[in-house]
């Protein structure tokens, strides 16, 4: 191909991602295809759109974080500790605490099925509804039954929520309900063993006929209640194996006698070592 200005030869170069034909004959002519410029413009626009989406997701993450408790809740005689590591900008896991007028503390952990923005939106709806319901109703079964009705009316078929909620007073007495959530555990300090708190009902939001019940719970001196989402047990290592309940239970049996904060730190360390940076599904 020859230079349209001086007729000398052209050399094709790539500059800033655009292919140009530069005159080699000294007229310094630069020739390019208009279509390439349009493609470049489209690419710039697409990048801008991608950047805007990223910023939207960052804002969404900040909003979701702001919905989590800002300070550690108090219940006389108890130490409460918690940790949340979202693996995406936003997701469907959340925890919350709510003191009741009668001096009890409600603690809850929920996991909305699915991922990303849709799960986060449902989580926000659920969290608001939970706070309202626990202000009116004191028992987990009543709240779960009402939430199930709400969710069955509002969410798409196939979406659901697993949730654990516990109501405790300062004497360590109370009750819990679990809607298809991973079993919680109580480390019993007196005997150095674990007690499992299994699910007490179906996942929420899937079946209108589901009915929820609660079970009594009592914590004694030195006992530790451990509640977690499947992000712990399903954390994958490089070989594709999951962290699993067995490792979690072994760790609790080994470390819980040193207290809840040490147990939490050790669990996070173990997860870090186990996953070796492997992306966690949740």
């Amino acid at each position, binding site marked *: 191909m020859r230079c349209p200005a001086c007729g000398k030869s052209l050399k094709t170069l790539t500059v800033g991602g655009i292919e140009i034909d530069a005159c080699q004959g000294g007229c310094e002519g630069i020739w390019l295809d208009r279509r390439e410029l349009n493609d470049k413009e489209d690419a710039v626009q697409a990048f801008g759109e991608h950047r805007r989406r990223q910023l939207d997701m960052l804002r969404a993450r900040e909003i979701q974080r702001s919905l989590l408790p800002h300070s550690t809740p108090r219940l006389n005689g108890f130490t409460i500790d918690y940790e949340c590591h979202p693996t995406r900008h936003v997701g469907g896991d959340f925890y919350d605490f709510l003191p009741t007028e009668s001096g009890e503390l409600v603690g809850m952990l929920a*996991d909305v099925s*699915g991922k990303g923005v849709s799960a986060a939106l449902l989580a926000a709806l659920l969290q608001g509804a939970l706070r309202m319901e626990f202000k009116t109703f004191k028992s987990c079964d009543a709240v779960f039954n009402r939430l199930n009705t709400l969710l069955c009316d509002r969410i798409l*078929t*196939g*979406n659901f929520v697993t949730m654990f909620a516990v109501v405790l007073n300062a004497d360590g007495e109370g009750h819990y309900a679990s809607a298809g959530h991973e079993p919680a555990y109580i480390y019993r300090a007196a005997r150095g063993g674990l007690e499992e708190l299994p*699910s007490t009902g*179906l996942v929420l939001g899937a079946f209108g006929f589901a009915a929820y019940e609660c079970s009594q719970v009592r914590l004694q001196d030195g006992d530790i209640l451990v509640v977690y989402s499947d992000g712990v047990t399903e954390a994958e290592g490089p070989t594709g194996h999951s962290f699993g309940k067995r490792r979690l239970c072994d760790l609790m049996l080994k470390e819980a006698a040193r207290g809840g904060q040490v147990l939490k730190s050790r669990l996070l360390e173990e997860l870090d070592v186990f996953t070796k940076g492997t992306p966690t599904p*949740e």
Partner: protein
Amino acid sequence: MKLTIDYRMTDGSVELGLTGKLLLGDETRYLGDTIKAAVADGNKSIVLDLSELAYIDSAGLGTLITGFKTVTNAGGDIKLRGLNGGVHSTLVTTKLLTVFEVIENPQTSSKSTS
């Protein structure tokens, strides 16, 4: 895709043998579409054979729930067979085993898709 479905016609029912992982995305869409198609073809009884299913995530559970509703709303029934360790444990925890009927003893003969 991490899921294959072995489509088996048995006496009066369709059996779907799942192999691999039932995860959010192509896998859940694939199973959902397969169940819908089986129901649209007039099949009233569907069995999901989960003996070769290595893992199911929350979206996979959601697909089972949707499948349950699709089949029962059409006047049919959907059953599970071959529950293995991890999948069985998940179905126990979520209490979905109180909704699905679980059966034993596989019957065979069929065509395979993936």
